[in-house]
């Protein structure tokens, strides 16, 4: 029984790991750095900025290396016009290739499933799955390219995804050695939310084909920020994920973010297995990062660091299972502000001088309901065979502007209104620079109006949902129009829209009253109408809330729902927090309630924060899940697909990886009187002295008959008499 449960968990973890590697982010930015970098030179050429306005004054600030890159690019400009024609030629070939590959893929999938059941050899399997996922990605992308052909809209042109172009080009020519080893892409996704708010998500990705893991020292930096590169080398970091968030992401109102993050600061790092003293390295690393990002990451110590056993798997390549190299910490109290944004912007190749990053003005960004900035560093494959690895740095910034505070109550958004800036150029160092606007709910323009209209459209499966995006390619001069600046305007026509309810979301709160004990309730909602799915729940609770694991109850639909896997690490006072990880099966259309009781500890008076009655924060719980996708929810979606391809749902559409963070908790603890240390010490010592004194008296003295002492006058008289030599009275 236990063995089967173990196997089940193992399988779940593998899939979780694979899918999180493959399908966690926007589909148009594949996980492998190879696609863009293998044909790096061509891409750069194609995306060159032939007519972009170049202000020499702005360039002078750039580093000499960037100047060089500039010249390389302008020298190769003449190849640009070749691009679109080639793409059209290849379309016919792709049609057949797609079908072939789809068949082989299904075969492979079947064999894979058999293998899983029979052998379950983890490493091979994971590798195979990764390859599969990658192949599936290719396929969907090709499909995306095909579907528009069937549409009637002649005015809109579907964007040929960059990856496909390169693939085609690679097939035609033998790959030439790349001219530059690093590649930078930037993206802004704007998603209008039905509440009238607007969600803007920036992603900046630098991929560098440098081997940080090897012995060779990396010393020449171009696009990759040197400060971060040195940190990664020095501390032998395999993966680093850090996020700073102000505000709480309202999943129910806003849907899923592209990259979820908990309120406050979150840091998780996978170290390489060459690190011997992981805790020491982690301590140093947090201090260094604290300096780099001007944040209080130095408050991360053993009391808020945990080693999750299942929830945080590496997102890059590598099949690490030994979680002793993983460290995870959150600082829910951390306030994020300008001083964190500035160092974050400095990591970008263009700084805040050009490209999308000109929009990042702190006075607007922080005047928002939700703001989150993150840095993710991970190793990715350099080529499809994954012979060598590259380092990927992904910087993301998510912001939600509120309808009422930022939008003055008008359902009308423009870049200028959001950021008080407009776009005038792409970052010259970027190989791709695009703005996406989510127009899925607006196919006929009945919800909102988008100006200037763009002829380019793209589709991507994001978080299990097929979304359509209008694309503004900033490397194309046409995007900027005659005004030489892009300030897209989004004006709502309808005031009410129905948003698809997120399939998975959660709530958490503290129950009970008084300062002695309490109960943490976590509610996890599964809104899927007919499918149950497993989730991993990770809670980290500080030591001063003493959890009682025997009071843990999990119930869904009024019935007891035993977690199939529990990893619990009890706390040690002033040393380490509680760590509770559970694998739960959420029944369809249900609420699962997890409760656990705790006692509140009285701390030493120096251990309280300066505002003790504000309360103590408990970091967000993390729910990691493979959620059945919205696309797969429609079991009759065989309209535009061949029948033989659609019986088994293909993996990426069947489920997708999702991480949900619950609310952080604010818990009050009993407090001593901070003004009393001297009084308390004095009074308690007095009581001890009373005990000591009375016992001492009884122990050392003996009972004697009381002879009353002579009066004062008599004593003085006696003294005088002694002087006189007369016997005393």
């Amino acid at each position, binding site marked *: 029984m236990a063995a089967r449960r173990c196997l089940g968990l193992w399988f779940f973890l593998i899939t979780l790991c694979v899918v999180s590697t493959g399908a966690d982010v926007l589909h148009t930015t594949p996980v492998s750095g190879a696609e863009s970098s293998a044909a790096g030179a061509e891409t750069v050429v194609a995306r060159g900025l032939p007519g972009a306005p170049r202000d020499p004054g702005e360039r002078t600030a750039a580093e000499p290396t960037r100047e060089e890159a500039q010249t390389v690019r302008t020298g190769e400009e003449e190849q640009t016009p070749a691009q679109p024609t080639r793409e059209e030629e290849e379309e016919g070939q792709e049609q057949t290739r797609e079908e072939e590959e789809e068949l082989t893929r299904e075969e492979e999938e079947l064999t894979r499933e058999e293998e899983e059941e029979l052998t379950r050899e983890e490493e091979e399997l994971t590798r195979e799955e990764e390859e599969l996922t990658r192949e599936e990605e290719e396929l969907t992308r090709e499909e995306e390219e095909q579907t528009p052909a069937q549409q009637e809209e002649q005015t809109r042109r579907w964007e040929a995804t960059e990856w496909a172009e390169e693939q085609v080009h690679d097939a035609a020519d033998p790959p030439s050695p790349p001219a530059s080893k690093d590649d930078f892409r930037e993206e802004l996704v704007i998603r209008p939310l039905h509440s009238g708010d607007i969600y803007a998500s920036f992603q900046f990705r630098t991929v560098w084909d440098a081997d940080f893991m090897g012995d060779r020292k990396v010393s020449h930096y171009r696009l990759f920020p040197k400060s971060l590169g040195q940190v990664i080398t020095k501390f032998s970091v395999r993966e680093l994920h850090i996020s700073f968030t102000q505000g709480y992401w309202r999943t129910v109102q806003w849907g899923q973010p592209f990259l979820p993050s908990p309120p406050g600061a979150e840091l998780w790092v996978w170290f390489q297995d060459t690190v011997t003293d992981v805790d020491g390295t982690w301590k140093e690393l947090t201090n260094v990062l604290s300096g780099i990002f001007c944040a209080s990451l130095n408050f991360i110590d053993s009391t808020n660091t945990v080693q999750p056993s299942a929830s945080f798997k590496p997102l890059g390549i590598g099949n690490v299972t030994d979680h002793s190299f993983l460290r995870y910490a959150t600082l829910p109290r951390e306030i994020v502000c300008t001083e964190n944004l500035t160092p974050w912007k400095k990591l970008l190749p263009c700084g805040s001088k050009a490209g999308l990053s000109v929009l990042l003005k702190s006075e607007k960004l922080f005047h928002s309901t939700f703001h989150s900035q993150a840095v993710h560093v991970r190793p990715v494959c350099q080529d499809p065979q994954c012979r060598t690895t590259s380092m990927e740095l992904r910087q993301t910034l998510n912001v939600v502007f509120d309808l009422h505070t930022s939008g003055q109550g008008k359902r009308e958004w423009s870049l200028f209104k959001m950021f008080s800036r407009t776009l005038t150029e792409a970052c010259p160092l970027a190989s791709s620079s695009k703005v996406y606007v989510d127009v899925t709910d607006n196919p006929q323009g009945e919800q909102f109006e988008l100006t200037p209209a763009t002829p380019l459209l793209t589709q991507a499966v994001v978080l299990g949902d097929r979304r359509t995006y209008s694309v503004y390619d900033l490397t194309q001069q046409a995007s900027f129009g005659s005004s030489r600046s892009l300030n897209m305007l989004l004006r709502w026509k309808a005031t009410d829209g129905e948003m698809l309810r997120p399939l998975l979301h959660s709530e958490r709160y503290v129950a009970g*009253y*008084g*300062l*002695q*004990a309490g109960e943490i309730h976590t509610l996890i909602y599964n809104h899927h109408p007919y499918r149950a799915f497993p989730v991993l729940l990770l809670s980290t609770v500080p*030591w001063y809330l*003493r959890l*009682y*694991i*025997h009071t843990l109850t999990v119930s869904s639909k009024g019935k007891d729902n035993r977690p199939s896997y*529990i990893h*619990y*690490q*009890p*706390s*040690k*006072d*002033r040393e380490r927090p*509680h760590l509770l990880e559970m694998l739960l099966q959420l029944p369809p259309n249900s609420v699962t309630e997890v409760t656990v009781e705790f*006692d509140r*500890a*009285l*701390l*030493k*008076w*120096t251990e309280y924060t300066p505002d003790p009655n504000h309360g103590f924060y408990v970091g967000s719980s993390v729910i990691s899940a493979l959620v059945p996708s919205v696309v797969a929810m429609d079991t009759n979606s065989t309209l535009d697909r061949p029948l033989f391809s659609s019986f088994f749902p293909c993996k990426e559409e069947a489920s997708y990886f999702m991480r949900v963070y619950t609310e952080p908790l604010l818990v009050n603890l*009993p*407090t*001593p*009187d901070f003004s*009393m*240390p001297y009084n*308390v*010490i004095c*009074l*308690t010592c007095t*009581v*001890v002295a*009373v*005990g*000591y004194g*009375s*016992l001492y*008296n*009884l*122990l050392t*003295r*003996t*009972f*004697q*008959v*009381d*002879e009353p002492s002579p009066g004062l006058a008599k004593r003085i008289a006696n003294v005088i008499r002694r002087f006189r030599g007369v016997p005393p009275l």
Partner: protein
Amino acid sequence: MAAPLTLLLIVAVTIRAALFRTSLANLISERVEVVSPLNAWKRVVEGLALLDLDISPYSGDVFHETPMVIYLFHFLMDYAEITFMLADCLTAVALYLAVKDYNKQVFRKQKFALEADRIPMDCLELIRSPTEMYYIPLKVAMFYLLNPFTIVSCVAKCTCGLNNAVIALFILSTMRGSALLSAIFLALATYQSIYPLTLCVPALLYLLQRLYIPVNVRRSSFWFYTLQYLFMFLGSLLVLICLSFFLLGSWDFLPAVYGFILSVPDLTPNIGLFWYFFAEMFDHFRLFFLCVFQINVFFYTLPLSIKLKEHPVFLIFMQIALIAIFKSYPTVGDLSLYMAFLPVWNHLYRFLRNIFLVSCVLLACSALFPVLWHLWIYAGSANSNFYYAITLLFSVAQILLVSDYFYAFLRREHHLTNGLYLKKKDGSEATLVLK
């Protein structure tokens, strides 16, 4: 005598069983005065739950019981209520028998003294009569079983009831003169909570006295017997600790149990002196005061044994009381053990100076504990100082109670040698003072 005792046991068990069935049981088991982090039932259950999850109960900071307790309740989990009721009854019966023995012995000694004319003539009213001594054992059992402190402690399933049973058995076996059993039970009590270590000296004194071996460092028989007793005690302690090691396969329990008792990391409020003192202590003085406060418990053993070397049973009472007052995580269950001995000393009543005041303070404090706790923790209208003040007062009252009994005991002894009505040189009535 057996019939009233049986009746008493039935009454006591009925009260407890009735309370277990009410909602009060839950309320009581959360009270900080009744349970401490060291012996709370909730934590025992937690330890067993951790064991079920294949986690060492000592890897966290919730469970601080000894491995024996885990294994005891591993089998008795479903019979916990009965176990605690039985433990209380066992304590009462053991105390009953022990006091009965002790009284016999006191009476015999008194008879010898009378026959030898060692007692002054005016002290005849201090002589204890068999009729007044007859009901003392029953009173002791009653004081233990019907003491509200014992009852709440039992209803909260506080494991200090078990410790009390072990100590009571230790006293009984010492009274019966069984050195081996006495050493084993003492080792068990020490194993459970270090502090009973100090009871080693009175037990040794009693056993020596019983065998008419004078306490004389130049006598080899004294050394022989002392070493023999210490060997039995330390040997059984070693066996217990090694057994615990083999039960769990690790030494984790040593820091988790004894380190926890000695270094006081958990500052949950209780009726003792430690919690608020160390919550408010400056960090660089912490170790110093920790040593001072812990030594305080063991410190009185030597002077008290010298002073009371003729009266080891009273020494046992003093030690148990001092442990209950000065230990790091005291609960009301500890109080109830030494309070059970008070009927043994009711012949000292005439010499007690402030028994009325002390009993009033103890009663008032017991009532005020829940009130001020509520005001601090739930209502928020008082702060920690209020509760702290009550714990201080409670401790002072206990100290006064113990020192008062000590005073009365010494005074009676003084009168027994020097006469009850002392005269000054000039023939007028004298007052007795300590000098």
